[in-house]
């Protein structure tokens, strides 16, 4: 969903119509407070298009809220305010796009929004080369964790004991977050993709090992890992028969440690076994679907 915020009702209407005509689902608001109400409704946001001066605050304040709400959202300041009058310094870490609002033209804005959403180019983490196909592949595996629980739970118990680790988990990475199908020794709620180690691990076809999370610049400030007491991380990607990495089989420890070559091989096997379970389940549920017709 795109949220379009502009106190100028006529200009806002023009922007909303242009985005809706391009096929986007658009919500709109005329002030910072109204925009915050839209966010409070909870729907995930793909993109924010906002004026700078919203009467009761600025578009950059709103963009900061949006990133707290939907961390991957593309934010675009679409404004008549001159850049000289935009206080960017206070929001230096935000990173947003800027398009000057000139008259009735919406072409430049539309091009930018279409590209930003198609390529998801404002995420704070790298994407696999074929992210669209990866997410599409995921759909056929996205089954109910409760249904899968037992088989994967056995594997995470085995992994924890095998590696003498504090915990093990099987996670699936969708477009914006990671969900856990099984956790043993640790309890993870779904996490924003930019906060998970596995986001980086799925870029690598091999086993990923982070011997000391505190020493890795990608995770050193990660509060979620810190709260869970994670110091060591290793994972094998869950790779579909079509070569798409849809998730990971991970183990965690509360102390930094090394991980031998044999351990890597064993973790790979556990990843393959978990993937096979997911594949079998997806086939069973596909067959079940046929029976219903």
């Amino acid at each position, binding site marked *: 969903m795109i949220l379009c915020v502009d106190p100028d009702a006529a200009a806002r209407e023009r922007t909303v119509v242009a985005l809706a005509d391009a096929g986007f689902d658009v919500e709109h608001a005329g002030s910072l407070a109204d925009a915050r109400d839209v966010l409070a409704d909870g729907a995930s946001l793909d993109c924010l298009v906002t004026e700078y001066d919203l009467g009761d605050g600025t578009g950059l304040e709103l963009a900061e809220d949006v990133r707290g709400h939907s961390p991957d959202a593309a934010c675009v*300041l679409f404004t008549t305010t001159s850049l000289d009058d935009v206080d*960017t310094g206070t929001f230096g870490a935000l990173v947003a*796009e800027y398009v000057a609002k000139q008259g009735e033209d919406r072409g430049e804005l539309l091009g930018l929004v279409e590209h930003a959403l198609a390529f998801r*180019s404002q995420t704070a983490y790298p994407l696999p080369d074929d992210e669209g196909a990866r997410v599409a592949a995921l759909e056929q595996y996205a089954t109910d964790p409760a249904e899968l629980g037992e088989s994967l739970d056995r594997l995470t118990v085995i992994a924890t004991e095998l590696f003498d680790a504090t915990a093990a988990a099987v996670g699936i990475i969708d477009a914006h977050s990671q969900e856990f199908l099984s956790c043993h020794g640790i309890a993870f709620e779904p996490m924003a993709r930019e906060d998970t180690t596995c986001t980086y691990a799925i870029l690598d076809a091999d086993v990923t090992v982070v011997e000391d999370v505190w020493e890795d610049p990608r995770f050193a400030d990660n509060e979620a890992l810190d709260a869970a007491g994670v110091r060591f991380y290793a994972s094998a990607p869950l790779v579909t028969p079509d070569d798409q990495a849809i998730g990971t089989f991970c183990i965690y420890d509360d102390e930094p440690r090394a991980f031998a070559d044999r351990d890597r091989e064993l973790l790979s096997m556990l990843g393959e076994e978990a993937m096979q379970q997911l594949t079998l389940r997806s086939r069973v549920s596909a067959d079940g679907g046929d029976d219903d017709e």
Partner: protein
Amino acid sequence: MSDDYEFARLPLASLRPGTTVLVTGSAHVGARNLGLQMLSGPPSEGAILISTNHRAGRIADDWARSGFELVEDRAAILDCVGDEETDVPAQVMPVSGPSDLTGIGMRYSDVYRTFTEAGVERVRTGLFSVSTLLSFGDLKTVSRFVHTLSGRIDAVDGIGVFYIDPGMHDDQTVSTVTQFCSARIDVRETETGQELRARGIPGQSREWIDFDVRTE
């Protein structure tokens, strides 16, 4: 392809529009000069250079020594360090500092628009350097900035040349930044001179090859 961006005096294959290259190597082995020269296209092209740690005047001199003729309507420098300098033959846009990534990104878009309005359709973009941004901001924030900027360059069919000094960062940082770029050129010094090695550039050797950048 005729739309490709060419590098006249460098042993580099042309780049497809939309490509961003990460140039890695320490400044003293010539990596920065190589990057500047890659930004220097024919007179029909524009160039926008984001200078994070050198004043506009200094980087304009370095750029000119690499053989580029700076002209105000096709060269812009986003200066994150100094005040606006008037004696530089380029549009010089001040940004409050290298930690203001939002400001840098927005200034960039604004300058790009003035180029388009002036009929300059092909633009090379330099970011010198990612290392400075990383010393003022965390990896996650810089990642979002680099991703957004390379996405913007792709959207407008430009090319990007981003410079990083790998000696200032650990491997994970350099590898993460590399993942936002479609190609990478490593630069090193040997007993006989300088060498570069490219990755991800179609038609370009993946071996180390000699190169010489003009500095007069």
